[in-house]
């Protein structure tokens, strides 16, 4: 269950259209290191995570990622609002405009639609949490790249906030991985998967 609050996690106020920046920012909505993939990854993985506090962590971070989906969507929306057709054509946003006008649709910066093939949920706490740590670092790198390309200060304030959140989430996932390992056999972490305990009927044997 979720409850929507009618506010952004971090204020966004873009005063002028900036199509080249909109075109790169949208990658964090529908791209391989984006917020939508992050939200779905954690919210899917939490079901088989065998420790309630790590389920809580995946739920809490997954929920925060949904707020980030809203923030990236807001950035794109405000950066494209009121844009004129000539600018849309010259900025290279014409391909997006042809299919979506200025509606919000999850694609990466090259226009490839969002795919759940960009993330995994493998029902193994060590593998899932290791993926989560990598995901946070990949998102951090994407934000670094956006900051390298964007000169829009109104956007960069927001991107800097989101980048910082990736670093905090990475830290929490690293702690979660340590917690899980502490509850496994230290001589062989992989001997037993606490998320998979088959209960076979007699007829299976």
């Amino acid at each position: 269950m979720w409850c929507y609050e009618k506010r952004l996690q971090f204020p966004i106020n873009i005063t002028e259209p900036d199509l080249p920046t909109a075109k790169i920012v949208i990658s964090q909505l529908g791209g391989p290191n984006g917020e939508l993939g992050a939200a779905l990854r954690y919210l899917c993985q939490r079901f088989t995570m065998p420790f309630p506090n790590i389920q809580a962590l995946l739920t809490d971070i997954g929920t925060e990622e949904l707020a980030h989906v809203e923030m990236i969507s807001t950035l794109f929306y405000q950066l494209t609002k009121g844009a004129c057709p000539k600018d849309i054509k010259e900025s290279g946003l014409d391909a997006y405009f042809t299919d979506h006008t200025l509606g919000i649709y999850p694609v990466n910066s090259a226009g490839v639609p969002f795919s759940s093939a960009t993330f995994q949920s493998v029902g193994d706490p060590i593998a899932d949490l290791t993926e989560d740590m990598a995901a946070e670092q990949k998102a951090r790198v994407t934000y670094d790249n956006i900051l390298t390309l964007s000169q829009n200060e109104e956007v960069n304030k927001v991107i800097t906030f989101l980048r910082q959140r990736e670093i905090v989430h990475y830290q929490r996932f690293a702690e979660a991985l340590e917690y899980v390992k502490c509850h496994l056999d230290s001589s062989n972490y992989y001997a037993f998967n606490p998320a998979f305990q088959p209960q076979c009927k007699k007829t299976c044997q």
Partner: protein
Amino acid sequence: MNEMLLEISKLDFCVNDVCLFLDTHPCDQEAMRYYQEACCRLQRLKQAFIQRGGALTNRQCANLNQYINEPFPWDGGENTCGAMKNDCNFQ
């Protein structure tokens, strides 16, 4: 109202962040005290916001029509300010 909502967002950020910390440090007493204090302040502020007619959710607001009709945050709702603020008035 705008400033009040910004304060709510700041406090909620504190609560959110310390919740993540407590997920992996459940025995940290200092963090737990911080959580309780921030939660308490957040609840008080939200209550005051509602009493002044603010509509943050449709589960807890004095006037549902206000929740429905006020601009959403991407359209210059309360949590943004300046140029976008009145840009989406369709009445």
